[in-house]
């Protein structure tokens, strides 16, 4: 989307609100918020043209920390809210933000169908492998032997799943992984994700300093992916399943048709009555 000539191009700072985030010092989400606002500025958008939709969780607090339109909805339901908004208002740029619990657990079904439906949305999942807001429970991406939660004191015993492989199989049109420790890289990927048509999935490894302090090792273990972006689903699937979940980059670019109904009237209200007339 190009900014109209008579509108001032906004800086990243203009996309931030003056609301102080509730996050812990050192939380990865501060960096993701910066990346998001950088991307909006880079895309040359106006505040009123953007809506950020979230569910419930620490990362779902993001809409209030931006100065654009937003909907802080209920746990797991950000994607359908965003879908309804984008389908009826295709002129808006709609971004969905949330965490691994909100998105993959209670939101799991909507995640599958949003990928399938391929509406032009960008979904930024801040994955810290834990439920932070409710004080430290395992999520669908937590390792099976993580025993720090009072709910699962001997570990969940349940293996985490591969969200990006699931996104690919479900039909997502753009798949990327980023790291909150690289805000500029994340900003670039979000910009590309918004630009790419269809459902764009961006998983950001965003450390939880309070409940997953071990994630500081991501500084050394996260690396740039050693593959180039592919449009080959089979190749992407094999690579994603083989990867340890710590490689960053734009991993898959699809070209499936985007779900965008036309919304054009071709008849009047009176015409609808004809079928009823005796």
């Amino acid at each position, binding site marked *: 989307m190009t900014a109209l000539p008579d509108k001032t191009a906004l800086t990243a700072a203009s996309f931030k609100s003056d609301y102080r985030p509730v996050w812990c010092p050192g939380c990865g989400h501060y960096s993701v918020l910066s990346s998001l606002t950088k991307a909006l500025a880079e895309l040359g958008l106006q505040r009123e043209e953007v809506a950020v939709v979230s569910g419930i969780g620490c990362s779902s607090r993001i809409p209030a920390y931006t100065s654009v339109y937003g909907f802080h909805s209920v746990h797991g339901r950000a994607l359908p809210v965003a879908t*309804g908004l984008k389908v009826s208002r295709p002129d*808006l740029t709609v971004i969905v933000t949330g965490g691994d619990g909100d998105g993959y657990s209670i939101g799991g079904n909507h995640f599958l169908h949003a990928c399938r439906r391929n509406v032009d949305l960008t979904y930024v999942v801040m994955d810290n492998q834990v439920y932070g807001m409710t004080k430290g429970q395992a999520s669908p991406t937590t390792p099976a032997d993580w025993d720090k939660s009072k709910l699962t004191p001997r570990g969940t015993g349940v293996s985490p799943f591969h969200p990006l492989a699931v996104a690919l199989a479900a039909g997502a049109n753009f798949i990327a992984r980023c790291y909150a420790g690289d805000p500029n890289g994340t900003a670039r990927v979000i910009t590309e994700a918004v630009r790419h048509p269809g459902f764009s999935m961006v998983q950001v490894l965003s450390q939880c300093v309070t409940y997953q302090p071990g994630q500081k090792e991501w500084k050394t273990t996260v690396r740039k992916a050693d593959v180039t972006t592919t449009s080959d689903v089979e190749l992407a699937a094999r690579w994603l399943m083989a990867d340890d979940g710590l490689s960053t980059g734009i991993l898959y670019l699809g070209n499936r048709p985007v779900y965008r109904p036309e919304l054009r009237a071709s008849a009047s209200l009176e015409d609808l009555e004809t079928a009823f007339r005796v």
Partner: protein
Amino acid sequence: MSDQTVSIAITGAGGAGVMTAAQMLLDAAASAGLYGLMARSSGPQIRGGEVAAFLRLGARPIECVDDRFDVMVALDWLNVERFAAEIVLDAESLVLCDQDAGEPPPRITATGACLTALPLQETVKSLEGGRLNMVGLGVLAGLTGLPEEIVGEVAAKALKKRGPAVLDAGLAGIRAGIGLVEGMAGSCRLAAGTSTAARWNFSGNEAAGLGAVRGGVRFVAAYPITPATEILEWLAPNLEKVGGVLVQAEDELASINMIIGSSFGGTPSLTATSGPGLALMMESIGLAVSSETPIVVVNVMRGGPSTGIPTKSEQSDLNIALYGLHGDAPHVVTAAHSIADCQFTTQWSVHLAEQLQVPVIVLTDQSLGQSRAVLDRPADLAFISRRETAAASVTDYRRYALTASGVSAMAIPGTPGGEYVADGLEHAISGRPSSAAEDHAAQLDKRARKLELFDYGQHWANIEGDGPLCVLTWGSCAGPAREACARAKAIGIATRLIVLRLLAPAQEKQFAAAIDGVDRLLIVEQSHSKQFYRYLRAYYDLPGNVRLFSRPGPLPIRPGEVLEHMKAWS
């Protein structure tokens, strides 16, 4: 205008064409200037199960089934046990069956009905490409006196695309059927139709769809569920024609949240479901209350609880519609009371939702939704959605500002200066989350006040008559109640009928005025746990003398039953 009606039951195995014949009979009655109501009953199988069609035809608009059937045409006797309780027969009823279909079930003969066996299958076999249902249609045309030309025209229209052979066989079948009953008793003759009014033939579900679109709805997200699916089937192509869209969601949780998102974007939005789906939607209906997002949820009630009886009607979702939200979550609940009123109430509900920025739950039921009626064209209505929105380049915008009416302007995305975050969290007037006592109190008051202060006008209820014996009811019970009141009036009992259309918020002052002078109040409803009665007790002062006629589904409430209660009290 003659009050006489004829009630007809047609039964047969699925695939025998019972519904086709019934539909043609209704269409023929319509063409002949008559009115009618058609309902159906079927087994659970998608293919091959047993089917029964119930019609009531007459020279005046018909809103409910009668107490009994004048004639039953049984194309065969397979599984007719299933419908026995619904097909009320007596010594004056005619039962026509096939002489080659075996013995009629004892339950049918025990009614004392006048049984006549006809050579139906034999007639079918004597015709080239003959079909049983077309002979049955002819039999009914002959008995009711519907002109052969009119029935033939209707059949021609319906069968045209099946080719000339099928059409000719159909017309021959009708003629043969008429021939079979020539000279039979004229007790089922219909008085001639004289209606020159513009009339429609539609179902309650179609009416609800039309009401939604007329009210301004242009986005629907929904999940199929019996008995609401036809609303969606009508909306899918028709919304598209007027520039809207229907999205089939993955479940009801997606449906309700999609329409919230769409409404947030400025588009009047609606979904339709039944009890189990409504239960799933409760959390997000609360989100719509808290974020003050207008939405309409049409709930076509069916037998409950849980999976219940999906293909039958009941009025047992009143409780969940009124009380199903967690927290103090005031919202609007309306109810349609006839097939035509499905259109009126849905359209009015869209208007209320938009005006008050609130979810409105519209209650209809299976008997209204899936029955077809020939009735006078419903009047055009003045309500269209009128949402109060923030002007472009608004300054110092406060989404949830405390206004006198309780309604605050909603900034639609795309409006510069109006940027805000809609939230389910309790909030300050800016929309920022807040747990402060004064913010919670202020916003709770705002959300309640906006509904309480609004003038709902005359539409909150239909009040007919001013007698001291009052029947108070809602939804599809209105039809039998109205007919009972008409019969009571004819025998000198002065009645009053109050049918509530607005259930929440309660209208105390108006209700008190409506029952002024009532000394006997008969409450009629179709639930087991007296949901309507308990609701009335909770919100209204009832007069001293109150009686209750309540029964759960699946059998319809009949006018004669209501009349018996009224007579016992006169």
